[in-house]
């Protein structure tokens, strides 16, 4: 709680810098307009003009908040201009892909932990894949699946699935190996089968690792979905709002979509953090 004041100070400082930058960056346009009309503008006239432009270079924070508010509450939820509609399109594909990617990742991790050949064959590639910009394949997957007749939510979900897949595999392998030799020996003295060891020791012990990689995975999933919405040419979703905004120079729209995406990402991570705290507390593994 004692960090509330510092955080507020930093956020306030960012907003102040933002306003100053908005005045500075948008002033050129105001001066141009005035020069064209043959008028002189004083500084006190310039400032209000810079903060309420239709297509500013940098929208002021209140314009972004207004754009966000209009997008969320100003339209019917089904409208093409509603941020709730676009946000849901993005969110549903993200969640579907995230669930698929996480499930596949956990399954592969279980296989890796139990099978030496699988471990040595797959694990180096899974680790190496972390250094590869796999996001670059996203547009290709969308277009290829489109040409095969697969459209809608599924192509985006596949991208979001493979982006969350690798962090989960790497994290879960680490987690399933977290029990130390003493605990594994204890299971052996009870003559526990591999399945029993998995269910009663390895899986519970891996929970902190699982949640850590879920947080990384869901953030990656969301980025994947947003990038996956670009190549189809701005149909629906937060990514398409970004793209159409950049086509038509609608800066307020871009910033509003960006903040909507940020809010979605932050809420998703917060929800996972909340589930994590609840689960770990009930399992008696909470950090504090």
């Amino acid at each position, binding site marked *: 709680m004692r960090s509330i004041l*510092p955080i507020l100070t930093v956020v306030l400082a960012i907003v102040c810098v933002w306003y100053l930058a908005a005045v500075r960056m948008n002033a050129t346009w105001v001066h141009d307009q005035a020069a064209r009309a043959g008028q002189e503008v004083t500084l006190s006239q310039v400032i209000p003009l810079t903060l309420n432009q239709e297509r500013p270079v940098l929208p002021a924070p209140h314009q972004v908040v207004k754009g966000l508010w209009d997008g969320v509450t100003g339209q019917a939820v089904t409208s093409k201009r509603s941020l709730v509609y676009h946000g849901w399109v993005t969110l549903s594909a993200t969640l579907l892909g995230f669930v698929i990617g996480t499930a596949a990742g956990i399954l592969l991790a279980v296989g890796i932990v139990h099978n030496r050949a699988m471990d040595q*064959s797959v694990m180096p590639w899974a680790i190496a894949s972390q250094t590869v910009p796999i996001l*670059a394949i996203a547009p290709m997957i969308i277009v290829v699946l489109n040409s095969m007749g697969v459209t809608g939510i599924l192509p985006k979900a596949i991208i979001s699935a493979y982006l969350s897949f690798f962090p989960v595999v790497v994290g879960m392998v680490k987690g399933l190996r977290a029990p130390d030799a003493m605990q594994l020996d204890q299971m052996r003295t009870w003559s526990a089968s591999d399945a029993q060891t998995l269910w009663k020791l390895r899986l519970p012990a891996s929970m902190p690792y699982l949640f850590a990689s879920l*947080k990384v995975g869901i953030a990656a999933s969301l980025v994947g979905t947003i990038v996956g919405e670009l190549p189809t040419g701005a149909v629906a979703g937060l990514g398409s709002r970004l793209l159409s905004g*950049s086509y038509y120079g609608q800066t307020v729209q871009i910033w509003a979509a960006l903040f909507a995406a940020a809010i979605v990402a932050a809420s998703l991570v917060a929800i996972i953090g909340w589930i994590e705290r609840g689960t770990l507390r009930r399992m008696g593994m909470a950090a504090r």
Partner: protein
Amino acid sequence: MRNLWPFLVLAVVALALVLDWRLGLVLALWLGAWLFNAGLAEGRAPWRRYAVPAIFGIAVLALWEMAVALYAISPVILPAPSAIWARMTASVPTLWADFVQTFVKGALSGYVIGCGAAVLTAIAIDRSPFLQRGLLPVGNFVAALPIVGIAPIMVMWFGFDWQSKAAVVVVMVFFPVLVNTVAGLAATDRMQRDLMATYSASYWQSLWKLRLPAAMPFIFNGLKIATTLALIGAIVAEFFGSPIVGMGFRITAEIGRLGLDMIWAEIAVAALAGSAFYGVVAMIEKWVTFWHPSQRN
């Protein structure tokens, strides 16, 4: 049970051969490579640790090639690895130009500026616990956001060329490096700092001789995370507008022409560049933090 496996595999392959000979061939190669690897993985010789993943990779490529040839998959859906390789060797100048534009000009310059700024900022706020308490949660929060979304804004501000890509990369790498550096600067323990105080070391002396070296493992952790982010940022930013050169541009342009072999070639280059970039940073880390337990064998 263990000795039954080869027979089971043979039975499955035979069954598949009868049903569909192409499926049978694919399965035979897959399971054969698998059995080979399973045998190899039993041993403990050090060379096997490299051989097993290498064989796995080669088997996947061979399967891919075989599946494309046997099922006559159209090259606009999935080109064969040999076709991709042919395309790569045939268009080295193009790939090199794209690499220079995206990696050297966009990603690398943004990476240097962003990481440098992040380390300097961390040192600047190091003296103020108040600022640290405020900036760290904000930094952690921003690090989880889909920052690539600022690409269209940066393209508007800095134009189509590499400057806008570098700007996206700066913002993307800044926060992970900042958060890690601040954590690293706090990593020395009280005893070590007290020792510096008994030497009557100035703030800068203790920063330079104790705290910055102690922070290096953390800083490099951030730097390694940032390598991948830099490449992703530079490529994705090109999806929002670029000159007619660059890896992201080539990918979007070839999608329109269904030149999938070229896209795969670009992806292979991106993968190589990404791994090499990470490897170089990891090597510098090894050289700088040779004293750290994780680097000693």
